[in-house]
């Protein structure tokens, strides 16, 4: 059975919103799983979009929901996906806001978090490995399909940028530099 695209977008992003704990890229594993399973984006597109999201205002969650919604269902699609990703937190917080002292001190909440925090780290680790493979082996596991100069350029960018990121260089500068190196090496090597 296929659901109408608007309902599908709403429900998928509702699920993503409901099961994301923690900020930033905690959402990445779920996004990867759901968005790829629906054939809405490829791993490559998601990585490209992370760069777009870092260079534009607003939270990643809203940005990617709006983007996937627009690409698959136009304006109404964007509304459905964004509404979907927002509603779970909205309702949960409305409930929690009434009892938040109790919630904060609840041992059940604290024990659940001792399980969820490491889980999110493991899941993001796995999402990053998937991205690593698409960056370094874009043509799959076939060793003959590796283009040595592309591989080396990617490796160089990753190493240099990782060093810069840990020196607290701003993400937008990282993205700009990576783009410049990508363009320069693209024209020089091809």
């Amino acid at each position, binding site marked *: 059975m296929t659901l109408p695209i608007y309902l599908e977008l709403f429900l998928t992003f509702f699920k993503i919103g409901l099961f994301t704990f923690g900020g930033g890229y905690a959402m990445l594993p779920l996004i990867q799983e759901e968005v790829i399973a629906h054939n809405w984006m490829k791993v490559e597109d998601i990585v*490209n979009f992370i760069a777009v999201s870092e260079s534009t205002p607003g939270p990643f969650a809203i940005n990617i929901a709006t983007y996937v919604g627009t690409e698959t269902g136009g304006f109404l699609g*964007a509304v459905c996906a964004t509404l979907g990703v927002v509603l779970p937190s*909205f309702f949960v917080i409305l409930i929690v806001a009434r009892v*938040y002292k109790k919630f904060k001190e609840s041992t059940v909440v604290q024990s659940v978090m001792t399980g969820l925090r490491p889980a999110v780290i493991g899941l993001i680790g796995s999402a990053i490995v998937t991205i690593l493979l698409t960056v370094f082996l874009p043509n799959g596991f076939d060793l003959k399909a590796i283009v040595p100069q592309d591989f080396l350029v990617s490796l160089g*960018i*990753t190493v240099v940028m990782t060093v810069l990121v840990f020196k607290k260089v701003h993400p937008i500068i990282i993205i700009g*530099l990576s783009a410049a190196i990508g363009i320069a090496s693209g024209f020089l090597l091809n």
Partner: protein
Amino acid sequence: MKDRFKNSLILFLTFLKIGAFTFGGGYAMIPIIEKEVCEKRKWITEEDILDIIAIAESTPGPIAINSATFIGYKISGVFGSFCATFGVVLPSFVIISIISLILRQFSDSLIVQYAFNGIRAGVLALLIKALVSMYKKCPKGLFSYILMGASFILAAFTDINVIFVLIGCAVAGIVNSLIIKRRVKQ
């Protein structure tokens, strides 16, 4: 009643500003919320901010939405939380709608493709940094390491849905706390 309407309008505008000027989302938003909501409006205290971060981290959904909803509710009830949330979402929504049109126009251009080839490697660096800072904040210990390893392996090498991994680890967290409690009693 009139105050409530006025407050909700201010909430909307304040969070509109927060949504429009925070790059990177989530945690990047906290200092701006502090400045706008604590210092300027005196709606909540610094201590409330710490509570909000703690709650946002242990409830589902993006931190931006969690904190907007929470602060909105504290200032002027359900309508306030609607206004704050709508405000924080709107800028991203508009900007990304426009950007997706632009991206579609340029996605075939060679220069854009080369740029993104480089950018993907740069994003990898950003993600590695994000992972390391999350790891630093996470409580360490054998139990944590086992769950990290297990969820990594399940996600990387099996087809098990991420949601089931999360539910499983939440249950493991409860069971672990019960065991610790029992041991302490004995």
